[in-house]
């Protein structure tokens, strides 16, 4: 047997070091484990401070002893390489392992073992753990806000239908793929709006907007047959003409009265709330802020000075102020800017405010992508005789947008995380509902459960979104 030098373990006495090291390390973990799970103190015979630090010291020595380079044992090498490269790392690793073992029992007992799952009143929650009965009782409110219970199927139905319609893109065949952008940018938002308006809100079948939508649909259909040379002027003039024709010539007042049939009970937006409101707000803001941001970014890079400076001013203004002041503006200042008889629903105001706010961020992200493209792309497109719009739609934007997928995903994530702020105008989505439930005299003292629940919900949504954007990024990554 070679001489053992415990200060520098080497390969010659591999097993002596290995066994002593592993046993010391296991001992230290055992001490902490027993202490935290069964509150057994193996080292109580030692004075306080020493017994407190003993597991750390033993574990450290154990890790030091098994730190043998090129031991030839695969498992040992992996451990050494990953958590045990030097003394400093060893101490940190041990501390982390201990912290995990120490924090598991209280967490487990709060979340599961001592928690109350059954029951529907505060009295059911007597244990020291979490009161999940509280979440269970309030679950409906957290999801749908003050929306009448009997009508909640309307929200479910709309969401399922919209999710299905949104998923259509995945099943599209090659033949229809080229219309997908049109579908998602124009048709889908209109369908979504109609769903929300008719189903969730229970609006009348005929309303001022109907003309606009009919006009838009007709003009788009006709638009397919117009030579591209006149398209710009066409889309400037025709929709407005059709709108005016529809409203003042073809449909008379009597017809409007006839059309004012309400299919469902009207639920005002103040009663909407909970997670479904989070989804509605983030969905519409997401749909609106992207095109606005796209145009702003193009405007900022435009050669036309007036458009350029207006875009810059617009972007810098929204980026410079906090969202909460924007919402304040939309709730207390904006009504001053409207004619007295004109009223815009507060949910609509909020959606417009958040969309404009986020559009400025989207614009800056897209500008980054536009700037990153080499000049050659612009020159090549121009040399093929493409005009401004053709060049951007077919050459520049597909490449630029591909580059900025992560940035846009981050902006959308920020948008979703910003939706709780709408409590400023009195709309209560899930966080707002939590605060309301917290102050209910029959359910006082369960703030923690509520916030933990909402955190988990948001974490799942945001984490899934960020993973999805990562996948998109990988999918569209092209070799350059």
């Amino acid at each position, binding site marked *: 047997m070679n001489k053992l030098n415990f200060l520098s373990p080497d390969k010659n006495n591999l097993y002596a070091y290995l066994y002593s090291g592993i046993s010391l390390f296991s001992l230290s973990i055992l001490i902490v484990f027993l202490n935290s799970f069964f509150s057994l103190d193996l080292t109580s015979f030692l004075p306080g401070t020493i017994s407190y630090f003993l597991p750390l010291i033993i574990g450290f020595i154990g890790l030091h002893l098994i730190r043998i380079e090129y031991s030839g044992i695969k498992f040992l090498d992996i451990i050494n390489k990953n958590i045990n490269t030097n003394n400093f790392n060893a101490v940190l690793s041990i501390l982390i392992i201990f912290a995990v073992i120490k924090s598991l029992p209280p967490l487990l007992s709060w979340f599961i073992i001592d928690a109350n799952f059954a029951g529907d009143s505060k009295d059911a929650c007597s244990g020291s753990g979490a009161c999940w009965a509280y979440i269970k009782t309030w679950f409906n409110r957290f999801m749908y806000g003050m929306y009448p219970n009997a009508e909640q199927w309307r929200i479910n139905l709309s969401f399922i239908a919209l999710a299905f319609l949104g998923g259509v893109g995945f099943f599209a065949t090659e033949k229809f793929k080229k219309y997908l952008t049109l579908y998602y940018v124009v048709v889908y938002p209109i369908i979504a709006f109609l769903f929300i308006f008719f189903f969730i809100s229970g609006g009348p079948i005929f309303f001022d907007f109907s003309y606009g939508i009919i006009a838009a649909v007709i003009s788009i259909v006709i638009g397919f047959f117009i030579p591209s040379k006149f398209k710009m002027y066409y889309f400037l003039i025709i929709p407005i003409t059709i709108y005016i024709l529809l409203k003042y010539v073809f449909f008379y007042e009597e017809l409007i009265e006839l059309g004012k049939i309400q299919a469902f009970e009207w639920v005002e937006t103040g009663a909407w709330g909970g997670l479904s409101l989070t989804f509605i707000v983030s969905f519409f803001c997401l749909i609106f802020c992207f095109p606005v941001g796209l145009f702003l970014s193009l405007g900022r890079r435009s050669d036309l000075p007036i458009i350029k400076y207006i875009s810059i001013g617009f972007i810098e203004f929204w980026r410079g*102020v906090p969202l*909460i002041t924007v919402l304040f503006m939309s709730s207390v200042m904006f009504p001053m800017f409207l004619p*007295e008889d004109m009223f815009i629903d507060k949910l609509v105001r909020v959606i417009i405010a958040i969309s404009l706010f986020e559009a400025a961020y989207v614009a800056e992200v897209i500008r980054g992508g536009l700037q990153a493209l080499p000049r050659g792309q612009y020159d090549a497109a121009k040399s093929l005789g493409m005009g401004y719009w053709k060049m951007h739609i077919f050459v520049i934007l597909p490449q630029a947008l591909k580059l900025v997928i992560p940035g846009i995903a981050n902006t959308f994530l920020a948008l*979703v995380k910003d939706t709780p702020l709408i409590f400023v105008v009195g709309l209560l989505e899930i*966080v707002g509902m939590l*605060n309301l439930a917290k102050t209910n005299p029959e359910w006082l003292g369960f703030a923690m459960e509520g916030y933990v629940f909402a955190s988990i919900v948001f974490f799942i949504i945001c984490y899934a979104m960020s993973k999805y954007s990562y996948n998109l990024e990988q999918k569209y990554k092209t070799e350059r």
Partner: protein
Amino acid sequence: MNFKKILPQLLTLVVVILVFGFFSYNAQVNMENRGITFGYGFLTQESSFDVQFSLIEYDGSHSYFRAYLVGLLNTILVSVIGIIFATIIGVVVGIARLSSNYLIERTAAIYVEFFRNIPLLLQIFFWYFAALRALPLPEKAEPMFGVFFLTIKGFFIPAFIWNNLDIFIYSVIAAIIAIFFVRAYSKKKQENQGTQTPVLLISIGLLIILPLLSFLLGGVDASIEIPVIEQLSKTSFTYKGGLKLPPELISLALALSLYTATFIAECVRAGVQGVSKGQKEAAASIGLTPNQVLKLVVMPQALRIIIPPTTNQYLNLTKNSSLAAAIAYPDLVLVFAGTALMQTGRAIEIVSITMLTYLTLSITISIFMNWYNKKIAIKEK
């Protein structure tokens, strides 16, 4: 100039002018109907409301402008605290993300993923309504190190009582200026002669010696006042003396720094990873020690990548501090755009002042950042 270029510009201009004209016309009509005139004269009127927590002397008899200052200072206070802690946590976590130790890297990654995927408002509520409410009452609080008291009513810490504080502050400023010159000198010396000066040691020395001199020669004098428990009524206790940090401030600063730190950590990680491996190898091959490699080659290049997005995060933190309104920390939004607006009803004036304040702040910083970016950008020949 051809028609195709002028038409869209003209159209945009007309639309913008129309929209603004529409809005301002309506605003005028509405204000006339309500009998209010536009103007900032109300700023000098007596505010007659109280603010819970203020850095400057303030009560109801002061003007609305003073209330604005109180809010602004509170915003700046929480932002500065948040920025300091977010930077410390962010740098530590960002470096931990690069660690070769699997456990450390995972822990840091879990922290980042967790805290940045939860809305900031929810975190603020969590700390304020759930976590800090679990703290003990003042009479039951255990002292930390005998002088700090963390209670449900706030964090009580010892305060310094100064004599001739201004001289002390001047000495600190003098030390900072001196450090600035030492750094410039050492940089020049290194560029000319290639020799290193121990800048860090000299800086620390200066920071200690000059204020110390102010104690010995300038007549500066400081004593420490420790908070002492005091009974207000039969069941109500509080601490007297020392400084009190209200729970609103603590939870806001905590949430802001933990949230922003995740973004700063990612900036730091990206910055250090952005320095190509060849740079480190090249530096090592010309015989620099690992410390020198880090200090002279890696850090200057990494900082160039780290600083712009990090400043952006500082700006975000400052803007996010306006969420204070949700937990009644008296910041600019709550004091001015909340209470003052409710009292005066001057929505346009107050919201515009509040927005302009934030706008000025961010535009100043972004102009400074553009200048700084230009200065540190690699000058290509």
